[in-house]
């Protein structure tokens, strides 16, 4: 590992190259700033592109952003901040036209308008899309525009430390994975846009890189992190976690247990397979837990499409058929697909105001890594891409306008971080990062999954703290300088252990069920005690402080339940 002396400066630094990061870079550059992106992968490998369904916006004359806002707040189990949702929904139409002008090939209606499809929890068709690969088209289009502007991208640079400014600019330390170099970069403004953290559960629809690095960076630097107990769980993932869209059930697929029963009739006789996501997910897990699922590979049930017939499957669900064949090893025309719930989205993140500012001067956050909060306890489909674009663009404008007083700090942090990383490489004889990661995933699934309660969660918190102790001696086998994949995995594990602790610290004291936080010892919403955001931060002794923050409530009055 080589230490590069000095501090490289830009007008703005953006950590993360998904939709939020690239939208910010484009806006900052268009406002005249020399913005640079750092990403631990190439920008086109970012997880934003896995989004299939679409992006919400009230773009029709007969729709209204205020209706979109109401649907979002209700879907959030009243926990979203209504001022932040106002920004999201009011700026949504402009975001769609900006994306279209950048070149996103949105699917159009026969009349030539941008088409919109129906998504859960919304009272009208509001989800714009590009076939069933909306995120892919958005990400590639924004990367084209990043190239067009000649924006600097530090590819495969893993940011391992964030340093708040002390009269100087904030800075960061990045590890150049290919070259094995450590260097410090500083700017008047730094944006964290590193995406979600659902990999802490192992069984997840997320890319393997979604380990919450940016949230952990901010937490270690003492910044407040909000609502980390809320992880959305999707009912139907393949056994390796890859998503099978709700559209399959929308077309009429059955959920069947090992006794060939359509078990949803016991849980939601009216809506059956199309009951709300959280209910369906809990029903599937109950079947597995009570021994009515298929017992191998950790348990699963069947999603059966066979009665739809080959023609309907080929025309309506071609992608699903491809995914099932390539990643599930079954052709849904001939066999049912093994599925189980999969962790899908991180609602919590670095606490920001509606201008993407964090508590630390010059440090901003946007997208899934941030919590502004527009999703509250449960995100609506089609609002994640929207948040990334709307708040990413907003961040970009704020980065460019950040005050330039101060100047770069010394390169002491790089020296420190180089010493730390060299120390990690020198460790011998400890456990492998993968062993600890698998144990962590099992703890998170057991204790913070679909069903939570005091006993499970307390046990989970103890286990996480024990894993954190074990990780202090974790060792890598690769001691080399060039593309040290083993060290990469250890740094990701460190972030995951921080994220897991934040999740546990927020979940244990929240004695209610709200959105995806479901407790069988407190089954109801408790607005009197818990209509508030959890705020965790790192105490000066390294411990976890837990506090609360009021929800921004304007005209939408929270109800005692969320009823559809």
């Amino acid at each position: 590992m080589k230490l590069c002396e000095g501090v490289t400066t830009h007008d703005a630094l953006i950590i993360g190259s998904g939709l939020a990061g690239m939208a910010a870079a484009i806006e900052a550059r268009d406002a005249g700033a020399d913005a640079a992106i750092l990403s631990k992968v190439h920008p086109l490998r970012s997880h934003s592109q896995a989004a299939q369904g679409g992006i919400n916006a009230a773009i029709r004359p007969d729709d209204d952003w205020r209706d979109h806002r109401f649907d979002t707040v209700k879907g959030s189990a009243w926990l979203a901040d209504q001022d932040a949702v106002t920004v999201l929904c009011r700026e949504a139409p402009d975001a769609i036209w900006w994306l279209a002008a950048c070149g996103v090939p949105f699917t159009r209606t026969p009349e030539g308008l941008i088409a919109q499809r129906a998504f859960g929890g919304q009272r009208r068709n509001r989800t714009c899309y590009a076939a069933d690969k909306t995120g892919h088209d958005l990400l590639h289009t924004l990367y084209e525009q990043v190239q067009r502007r000649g924006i600097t991208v530090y590819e495969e640079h893993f940011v391992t430390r964030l340093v708040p400014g002390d009269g100087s600019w904030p800075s960061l330390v990045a590890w150049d994975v290919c070259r094995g170099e450590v260097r410090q970069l500083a700017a008047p403004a730094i944006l964290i846009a590193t995406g979600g953290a659902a990999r802490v559960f192992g069984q997840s629809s997320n890319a393997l890189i979604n380990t919450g690095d940016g949230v952990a960076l901010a937490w270690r630097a003492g910044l407040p992190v909000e609502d980390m107990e809320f992880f959305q769980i999707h009912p139907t993932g393949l056994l390796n976690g890859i998503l099978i869209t709700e559209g399959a059930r929308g077309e009429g697929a059955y959920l069947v247990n090992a006794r060939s029963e359509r078990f949803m009739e016991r849980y939601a006789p009216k809506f059956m397979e199309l009951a709300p996501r959280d209910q369906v997910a809990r029903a599937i897990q109950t079947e597995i837990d009570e021994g009515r699922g298929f017992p191998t590979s950790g348990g699963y049930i069947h999603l059966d499409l066979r009665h739809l017939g080959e023609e309907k499957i080929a025309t309506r669900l071609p992608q699903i058929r491809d995914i099932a064949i390539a990643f599930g090893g079954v052709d849904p025309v001939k066999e049912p697909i093994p599925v189980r719930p999969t962790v899908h989205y991180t609602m919590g993140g670095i606490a920001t105001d509606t201008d993407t500012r964090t508590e630390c001067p010059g440090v901003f956050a946007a997208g899934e890594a941030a919590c502004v909060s527009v999703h509250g306890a449960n995100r609506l489909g089609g609002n994640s891409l929207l948040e990334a674009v709307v708040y990413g663009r907003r961040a970009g404008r704020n980065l460019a306008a950040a005050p330039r007083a101060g100047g770069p700090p010394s390169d002491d942090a790089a020296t420190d971080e180089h010493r730390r990383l060299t120390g990690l490489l020198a460790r011998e004889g400890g456990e492998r990062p993968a062993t600890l990661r698998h144990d962590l995933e099992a703890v998170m699934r057991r204790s913070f999954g679909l069903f939570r309660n005091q006993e499970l969660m307390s046990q989970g918190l103890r286990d996480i703290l024990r894993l954190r102790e074990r990780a202090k001696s974790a060792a890598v086998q690769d001691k080399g300088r060039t593309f040290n994949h083993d060290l990469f995995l250890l740094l990701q594990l460190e972030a995951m252990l921080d994220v897991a602790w934040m999740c546990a610290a927020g979940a244990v004291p929240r004695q209610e069920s709200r959105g995806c936080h479901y407790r069988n010892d407190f089954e109801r919403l408790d607005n009197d005690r818990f209509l508030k955001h959890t705020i965790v931060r790192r105490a000066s002794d390294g411990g976890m402080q837990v506090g609360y923050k009021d929800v921004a409530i304007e005209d939408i009055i929270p109800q005692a339940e969320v009823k559809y």
Partner: protein
Amino acid sequence: MPTATFRIRRLNPDVSPEPYWQEFEAAWGPGDVVLEALHAIQESQDGTLAYRYSCRGAICGSCAVRINGTAALACKTQIASLDAAKPIVLEPLLNSPVIKDLVVDQEPFFASLRNIMPWLDPGGRDPHEHYTIEGLMSPSTRDQFLRATDCIMCQCCFSDCPKRLEDPRFVGPATCLAAYKRIHHPQEPAPAERLRQACQPGGIGDCDRHTNCVKVCPKDCRPMRAIMFLQREAKEAGIAPE
């Protein structure tokens, strides 16, 4: 569970500039893909093994390697589809310098892409305008345009293009496909200029029609078909390359 032998071409520049072969055994079950075998080997046999991945769902384009001599996504290649009685040979992609083990330098690929300025410039059709792709394009153009938008830049076609191997001035199939996307984009302000640019030396006229790009593409984007369409369009427009 059955086991398979993975014969991996290794290179660690920290130790030696010479590549070498190493064999690993890994257990596998139905539905398991090559990427999972790589994880198993890295986790429990050799922590120094380097390879790229991200989505493990064939959408991010990170994990392309050569499997038994042909470029493919490690996440999409089921071990059951290979002959597990023989060693499964894994090598880094061609036409790019190797950084370490199965990790190659992506810069030659993206530098070739930047040659055709793969972005939309302002000044074309206003997206507010009502239009349909069907109304603007013939069915075959529309089909190829949508295939061009499916490209995940995984570099499989770039790796296995014999023309690129023999003449590095050729920009490669994915870049030509990106040119197709630009030229036919409904909002492109200067399609004729773009087509002329694609016809420059090293561009669409240099394709030798080996068809490898069509065979190895994990998203069925058919780059050579796009090249042939562009060649025809260039001829009709009187700007065919030499």
